[in-house]
């Protein structure tokens, strides 16, 4: 496997009237060829800003203070507008949340799909249309050849999202960025779209970055997961590591607050409070004010990443060798049991600190 995208020490500030908003605070991750990386976090955690930066679509008042975004070894942040235009929709393409607004209502869908092809390749109108029909079939629009002249409003929400996906994949992008592509859809349609994305991934061999706040969706689609909170990645690992061997109290909180169909407790476990304002992030660990496990050091110093396994790291002082052992919440303990069954030979997690630069 080779790394197709590397984000290193990214820091982004937004200039607003109230002051500097530190939207992204030292984010690093990488994407390998053919994998699906899910980025989980609540609104304002910086997941969308990170992706816009990768697409070269940072808002005007945003400024990259530090860091690099390497796509096939080249820094996207240093590219000119023209180079970015060549890249967008071709090497990296994006699927947006709302299929109602991401299609042009006044243009037939065949033309919308074919146009993306023609922007980046010199092909005739006719062969572009044929290719459009082929891709629309691929994403599951039945009888696509005869529907090329139809307008978006003639399709249902789920079908529209399929058309959006067709536009995104027609140039066989190396990276597909999906920004909450199923949030606006009903559960049954959501399930279909996720299956479609999984199927397409094997067919066209693309890497997917999937943003969502729905852990259920993550469990179904992701190979690796990055959990973001207040502009930072707080935990990063394979999907099994995140769901069965989570280390960060925020990840615990997320996992606990989702009722499964079996949940029968009197109260759901809720993470108290609200996310901090990034105008004036709290000293130390940003999650500390909402963290039942917060220790004195959390209010004083930001935790570095501690490596749990070669693929798993988490930024919490709980992993420090001197930290006391805490009693796990029942739901997390239950998940740890599954983890032990899956990895019977695992020793105690060997935590080593990895500098946070």
């Amino acid at each position, binding site marked *: 496997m080779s790394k197709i995208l590397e984000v290193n020490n990214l820091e982004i500030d937004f200039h607003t*009237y*109230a002051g500097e908003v530190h939207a992204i605070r030292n984010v690093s991750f990488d994407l390998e060829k053919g994998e699906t990386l899910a980025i989980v976090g609540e609104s304002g955690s910086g997941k969308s800003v990170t992706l816009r930066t990768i697409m070269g679509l940072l808002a005007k008042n945003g400024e990259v203070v530090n860091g690099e975004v390497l796509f096939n070894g080249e820094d996207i942040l240093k590219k000119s507008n023209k180079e970015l235009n060549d890249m967008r929709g071709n090497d990296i393409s994006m699927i947006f949340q709302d299929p109602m607004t991401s299609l042009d209502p006044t243009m037939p869908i065949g033309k919308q799909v074919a146009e993306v092809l023609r922007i980046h390749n010199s092909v005739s109108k006719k062969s572009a249309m044929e290719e459009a029909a082929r891709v629309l079939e691929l994403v599951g629009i039945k009888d696509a050849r005869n529907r090329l002249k139809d307008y978006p409003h003639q399709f249902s929400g789920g079908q529209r999202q399929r058309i959006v996906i067709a536009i995104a994949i027609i140039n066989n992008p190396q990276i597909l960025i999906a920004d909450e592509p199923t949030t606006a859809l009903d559960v049954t349609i959501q399930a279909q779209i996720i299956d479609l994305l999984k199927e397409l991934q094997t067919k066209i061999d693309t890497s997917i970055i999937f943003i969502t706040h729905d852990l259920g969706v993550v469990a179904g689609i992701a190979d690796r997961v990055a959990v973001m909170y207040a502009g930072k990645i707080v935990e990063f690992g394979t999907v099994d590591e995140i769901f069965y061997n989570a280390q960060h109290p925020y990840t615990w909180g997320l996992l606990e607050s989702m009722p499964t169909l079996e949940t029968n407790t009197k109260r759901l476990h809720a993470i*108290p*409070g*609200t996310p*901090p*304002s990034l*105008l*004036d992030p*709290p000293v130390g660990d940003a999650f*500390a*004010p*909402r*963290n039942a*496990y*917060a*220790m*004195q*050091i*959390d*209010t*004083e*110093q930001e935790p*570095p990443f501690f490596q749990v396994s070669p693929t798993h790291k988490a930024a919490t*002082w709980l992993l*420090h060798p*001197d*930290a*006391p052992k805490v009693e796990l919440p029942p739901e997390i303990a239950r998940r740890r049991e599954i983890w032990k069954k899956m990895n019977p030979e695992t020793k105690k997690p060997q935590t080593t*600190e990895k*500098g946070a630069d």
Partner: protein
Amino acid sequence: MADYKINADSFKLAHIEKEAQEHISTPSLTFTQDAFRRLKKNKVAMVSLWILCIMIFLSVISIWFSPHNPNTQHLNWNNLPPKLGNLNIPGFNGHGLVRGEYIDAYKASKVPDGTWFALGTDSLGRDLLSRILAGTRVSLFVAFMATLFDLTIGIIYGIVSGWNGGMIDNILQRIIEIISSVPNLVVVILMLLVFKPGLLSIIVAIAFTGWVTMARLIRAQTLQLRDQEFILAAKTLGESPIKIAWKHLIPNLSSTIIIQTMFTIPTAIFFEAFLSYIGIGIPAPKASLGTLLSDGQKNFRFLPYQMVYPAIVISVLMLAFNLLADGLRDAFDPRSAR
């Protein structure tokens, strides 16, 4: 690890104030304050605002402190060029062409020393500056009053139409279409034939045709707002429609209202000027910017200042209103800003 200072207390459980969890750190700004903050950043709009304030102030203060009486005629002193005291500024030194000669017109007309007219006099010997000040006042008064009528009719009509929808909306909208299908000028001329020409009839005439745009805008906004959840919430609480309009609709329509008003005022000024210019507006001897332009235009080739100064005033006035309106729109509705 050297970066981190770890001491004995480091791993003790922290005591977190509940307060910290619900902390709000953004400064408290009301919507209006926020809009005004954005407006202040817009230099063009702020300059326009100041110009307007100064013009309005001067035109009002001239009721009591006018250089001359705007309506007093000095038939011997007619058509005097501008003169500013005894300062010898070209263009303001009282020199002008009299019977083909460039001479001191004030001496020629035997104006006593110490009497001077900053912007000259008109063909009846009235002080032009005083008349411009009085004219601006009249024009602004007409515009403000007409706009006020506009607002009242337009807002009520728009809200009633948009809120009720269905049949009522249908009828009200057809009425609007009929009114707007008749050319303004025809309506106004007919009205001025019925009523006696004068301030009131001009105001009524302008208002009669002007409220249509406001009503349409308000209706469109009301249609959008009426399905907003906070309006539904007020309904489920049992709030009466009139109170919903007053407490929920109007505050949320205020930006539309303010912006549209700022565009209506210059239109009204212009329309009044136009009517006066073609002679069916403010009757003599009252001055308005329109009548001044109309008078000045007669002697434009020989005494350009009689037309140039009123023209400058009306242009600056219109421009300032429009630029301010633009700035307000950007300030109240940040999404529409480029």
